[in-house]
């Protein structure tokens, strides 16, 4: 349909290329309209519309993420996502039923799920990447199935038996598998962060958790001590249910506080580490999310969401994404016009377009 292109690349042969900051142009108010209409349709259809709502949500976020003058795009088919969710639901039901039966079936079902999980995860990477594009060029995931088993099943097992001491190692391996096997058109991505750097961040997180835990225990013990001495005075027999309730309340509050204070710091550090060590061909990425800034966003989002019984969520999601994306910059090593789409006969494993969406969103 289009006429033949005459050759010649466009201008811009300067040796240095300007860094291209990533910007997010969406707003909470805009997104609220989309969010509430989709929520209503989801409720009215008893959840079926949720897959269509998810596609629209991803399209909103992708199409408002801009770099070098162009935005991303999401092409996922809602029907595929719906099928994927049905399969996930079936697995969940099978798991719940088998657990209550307390028999050999439990082992069989859990074992079966563990065995197909790496395959499902790889499939979800393929689906997500293939349905993402920039300027019309799609991304691809070419990781091998065997590698998926090594990265997830084997490492997962090792991590469990070493009581999670290998968790940072597994995290690095997962990211390496994901990013080294990702392609943008004909350009392969690469991952350069080392295991040691993951361990440093996890250690920091552990220290923070221990400090926090110590404070909670001292606080908890203090309040329990006061409560018990009060109980003794009133003559009621221990254990007083009020005390137990209070302890549970304190622990729950502590859990939320930890999630809101320590979680974002860890997330910022890990995300920065992962993305500044990821390259698309020769192009580099800078990622400088401020840990304290993220903590503030988390606290304020939580507060506002709670007092509005959840209605603040669309604004909260936008704020969170915007804050993080604004910290990302693409540092091109050449002209952004020169990326080429993958050639059709080279499109890796068969039937990329038919990869079902098993809807696992692995957070970074």
């Amino acid at each position, binding site marked *: *349909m*289009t*006429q033949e*292109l005459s050759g010649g*690349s*466009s201008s811009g042969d300067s040796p240095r290329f300007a860094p291209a900051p990533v910007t997010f*142009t*969406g*707003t909470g108010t*805009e*997104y*609220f*309209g*989309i969010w*509430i*209409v989709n*929520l*209503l349709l989801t*409720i009215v259809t008893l959840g079926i519309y949720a897959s269509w709502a998810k596609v*629209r949500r991803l*399209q*909103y976020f992708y*199409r*408002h993420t801009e770099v070098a*003058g*162009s*935005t991303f*795009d999401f092409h996922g088919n809602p029907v595929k996502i719906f099928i994927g969710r049905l399969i996930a639901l079936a697995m969940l039901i099978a798991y719940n039923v088998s657990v*209550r039966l*307390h028999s050999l079936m439990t082992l069989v079902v859990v074992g079966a799920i563990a065995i197909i999980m790496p395959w499902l995860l790889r499939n979800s990477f393929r689906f997500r990447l293939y349905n993402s594009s*920039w*300027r*019309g*060029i799609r991304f691809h995931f070419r990781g091998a199935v065997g590698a998926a088993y090594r990265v997830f099943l084997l490492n997962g097992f090792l991590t469990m038996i070493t009581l999670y001491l290998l968790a940072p190692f597994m995290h690095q391996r997962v990211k390496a598998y994901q990013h080294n096997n990702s392609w943008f*058109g004909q350009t392969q991505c690469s991952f350069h962060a080392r295991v040691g750097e993951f361990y440093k961040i996890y250690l920091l997180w552990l220290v923070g958790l221990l400090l926090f835990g110590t404070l909670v225990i001292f606080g908890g013990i203090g309040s329990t001590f006061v409560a018990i001495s009060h109980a003794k005075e*009133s003559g*009621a027999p221990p254990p*007083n*249910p*009020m005390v137990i*309730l209070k302890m549970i309340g304190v622990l*729950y509050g502590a*859990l*939320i506080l930890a*999630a809101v204070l320590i979680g974002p710091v860890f997330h910022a550090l890990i995300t920065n580490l992962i993305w500044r060590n990821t390259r698309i061909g020769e192009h580099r990425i800078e990622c400088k999310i401020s840990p304290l800034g993220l903590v503030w966003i988390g606290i304020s*989002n*939580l507060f506002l*969401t*709670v007092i509005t019984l*959840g*209605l603040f*969520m669309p604004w*909260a*999601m936008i704020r969170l994404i915007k804050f993080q994306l604004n910290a990302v910059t693409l540092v091109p090593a050449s002209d*952004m*016009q*020169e*990326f*080429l*789409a993958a050639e059709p006969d080279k499109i890796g494993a068969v039937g990329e377009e038919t990869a079902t969406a098993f809807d696992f969103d692995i957070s970074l």
Partner: protein
Amino acid sequence: MLTADFFDGHSTRVRKVALRIDGQTLSVSGENIEFQVPLGEVHVDERLGRAPRRLRFSDGAFCEVGDLDALDALLSSADHRDGWVDRTQRRARPVLVCLAAVVALAFAGYMWALPWAASVAAMKVPEVVGRQLSVATLRALDGPILLPSALPEARQQKLSDDFHNLNLPGSGHPQEVLLFRSSPQLGANAFTLPDGTIIILDELVKVVDDDQQILAAMCHELGHAHGRHGLRLLLQSSVLGTFLALYVGDFSSVLAVAPATLLHAKYSRKLEEQADSYAATVLRFNGMSPVLLAEALKKLAAAHQGKADMGYMSTHPAIDERVRHLYAEGR
């Protein structure tokens, strides 16, 4: 005429083009590009926020337009209609209507739809499931929480006979199994398992003392059994928990626990009230006063001092309220 960026889908090269619509044909012209295509073969993205809109062609190429208003004008001149969801999302009034609808549906769902659906479903659950759950529950409780009853055989027999000789309004007598146990942790209490088995604790027999009042407490448990409240509560809590997890889950999984607990407590209170009502009916049918249950509750409340005034947080509605209700029924 409208300017746009053209991408051919094979490279990231941008080319500036101009768009025109004549009748039902879209014309695209620019640097080294010149073609027409029927508007019907072009897929037009919905307008989403302020994102550039794309007009996609069947070969994977597309045009991207930044000036959304101008595109709207161009498309409407060719009688192109945007989808209704698309249009609803963008206008303030439909959005507010949707907001009101969501709030109303959530409220109605929680207050009426879910309890009704759970009561219907609980009745349809096959007996064998209820029995499995009960057997498993009893097995878990016997030992750590429940000890064998220390009541003399004769006493147990008498209370059991009193119970099974009750006349029920629908004709017949209670068929439920009555078990006696003792529990220092649970104290003066009685409860019903999912399959209708009723468990009476020694401490309750001791505290309430009066046989007729003990019988009244059993009638209350019978209310739970006949309403299959154990299963109902299980269903309601599970569905409630799932919905909250989905609603808040995208945002924070820990946050869903608190509202789930509060909302669940409210469900428990309603079921206790229903059991009280049932007990009052059965007692009257057998020539006894609902006040008997009120007296039993007062004695139990006194024994559990400290628990009684947890008020809103409690799964047992404030005893005073229930006592008042029962006195009113007794007139």
